């Protein structure tokens, strides 16, 4: 991990961008102008950003339906992200995927693709490809703790080990899968206990601590790049909003979110750390906050006013090779 200033500034800016993007989405969603289901990443920023701090251009990042944050963390254009969520013609996926299916081939951001957890298998394939090319890349699969209960995830863990693939499986345990709590759905309550059954090292990381995530992930990535095979990271955090917008969240204990916002907000913790350590100063961070606010304003403004896809787009690229 690289704790130099520019890296830290990047991390703060990126986490703040995600946070403001999501807070804004939470607001505008109520207007009805955003189509489809929208799953917000607020509260989980340190996970995606801590991971992406350690990725190179050759690496693949497989994300989930809770896509905005991870896509932005990996460098997707914020406006293109907003455009896609609004299903506009110039969205990342030409308006076809929407919020849950952000995908940016150029940035090697691989979108959520059907059943939760499926990224774990696809990531094995990205890893095969990067190894085949010998370009030193790795693949990262982000999987929710709920999605971890899909059979394909266990299969992928085994396959990655058998083929000794350069993959890091990052399980983001945000406490819930929809309304079902992780404590209920994961036998024994400890997801990372599964790692050793598939012969790979595991770690449990505090997901509100950017530094912890980044350090832990860096180690796993290093191992993968060195040909040591896959690793298993469980990042524990909470989401600050509902499963999707509109969720009344009555399944959560009272005060859970307020307490998390108060004591485990990754942005607050990051700010406290870098200022108290004198790595960055508060004024710099304030400037970033202002910059980001403008960026978000502009992105939403653009998205809101952009055109929907042309009607003929419906039949476009059903097949890649026309016969």
């Amino acid at each position, binding site marked *: 991990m690289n704790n130099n200033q520019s890296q830290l500034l990047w991390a703060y800016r990126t986490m703040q961008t995600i946070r403001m993007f999501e807070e804004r989405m939470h607001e505008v969603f109520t207007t009805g102008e955003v189509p489809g289901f929208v799953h917000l990443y607020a509260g989980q920023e340190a996970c995606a950003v801590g991971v992406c701090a350690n990725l190179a251009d050759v690496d693949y990042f497989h994300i989930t339906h809770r896509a905005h944050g991870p896509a932005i963390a990996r460098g997707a254009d914020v406006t293109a992200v907003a455009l896609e969520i609004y299903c506009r013609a110039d969205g990342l996926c030409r308006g076809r995927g*929407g919020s849950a299916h952000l995908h940016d081939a150029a940035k090697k951001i691989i979108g959520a693709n059907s*059943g939760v957890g499926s990224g774990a298998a696809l990531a094995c394939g990205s890893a095969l490809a990067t190894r085949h090319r010998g370009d030193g890349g790795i693949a990262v699969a982000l999987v929710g703790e709920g999605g971890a209960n899909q059979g394909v995830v266990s299969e992928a863990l085994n396959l990655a080990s058998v083929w000794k693939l350069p993959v890091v499986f990052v399980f983001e345990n945000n406490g819930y899968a929809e309304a*079902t709590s992780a*404590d*209920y*759905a994961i036998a024994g309550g400890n997801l990372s206990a599964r790692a050793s059954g598939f012969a790979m090292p595991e770690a449990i990381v505090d997901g509100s601590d950017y530094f912890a995530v980044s350090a832990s992930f860096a180690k796993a990535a290093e191992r993968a790049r060195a040909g040591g095979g896959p690793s298993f990271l469980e990042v524990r955090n909470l989401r600050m909003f509902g499963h999707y917008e509109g969720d009344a969240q009555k399944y*959560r*204990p*009272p005060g859970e979110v307020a307490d998390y916002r108060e004591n485990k907000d990754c942005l607050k913790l990051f700010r406290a750390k870098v200022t108290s350590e004198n790595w960055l100063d508060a004024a710099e961070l304030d400037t970033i906050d202002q910059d980001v606010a403008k960026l978000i304003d502009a992105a939403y403004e653009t998205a809101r006013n952009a055109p929907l896809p042309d009607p003929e787009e419906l039949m476009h690229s059903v097949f890649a090779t026309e016969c």
Partner: protein
Amino acid sequence: MREKSYRNAIRETLYQEMGRDPDIILIGEDVAGGAQSEGTKNGPKKGGEEDAWGGPMGVTKGLIGEYGKQRVLDAPISEAAFIGAAIGAAAAGLRPVTELMFNDFLGVCCDQIVNQAAKYHYMFGGQDTIPLTIRTTMGAGLRISAQHSQSLHSVFTHFAGLKVALPSTPYEAKGLLTTAIRDNDPVIFCEHKMLYRMREDVPDESYSIPFGEARFVMDGEDVTIVAFSRMVHVATDAAKILAKQGIKCTVIDPRTTSPLDTESIFDSVDETGRLVIVDEGGPRCGIASDISAMVADEVFHALKAPIKCVTPPYALIPAAPNLEDLYVPDAAKVVAAVLGIMDA
């Protein structure tokens, strides 16, 4: 008799049937809405209010309060395992009702549905029955893209051994679900996402609608229109528009694709000589072609004009609202199809 939504008609049916038969259990993701978190060695119970959800569509809300945790089982996101378990339980004498959140998730439990549930009774020589109902949601309209908006009833129908019901109204939903639950075969019960809020008068007492008996929504001697699920309403809208132009349509809702009431369809085409089938599933190897082929074989000599299938194009379902609306058949397309064969 009270006006009820499609959602509530389904919930009421579950409530009544579970009251009638203690061997009915409910299994699905969030069906008990988080109620089942009791804490683990890692900490105390974390959850908030019990029964907060009732499945993502809110259909099963309240049932755990009435029937308890032994009969309303929240499942991890493991469709293959919990539908497999439902099959095992059905073979062993229970009468499970499971919820497959989106029919698209057939993807992750296909073996259980098409190879196991569908074939268990036959392959083992008729020794056990599989009285299993799989409630699932179908249909486009929510702008949630290609993997959560499909209508896969034709795929289920392809596999002998499954019954497939597609309720088009609240009244239909209650009667067909009652039949589904009491039936001794695996039934795929396809609830259309865009119908959950539809309301109509639905009897309070329980009743069943037999499988394989079509409903005649409208009668008319010029054209037969067969439609399923939400498309029944699209077809009816089209028929009303056509009626103003003096074209009289029979609109048939077969209610189930397996078994299919071919007799009603054949009889009607025999009279009208013209057939249009409206379906929201994919155009290739679907139920529209299926019905067309049966008619082109069995009622060929009555046909006065080409048979038209009004379905989505051979494309995928895009998230963008304007494209999604283009994808799904609407009344205008049905009207055009009918007009196209009126002077043929």
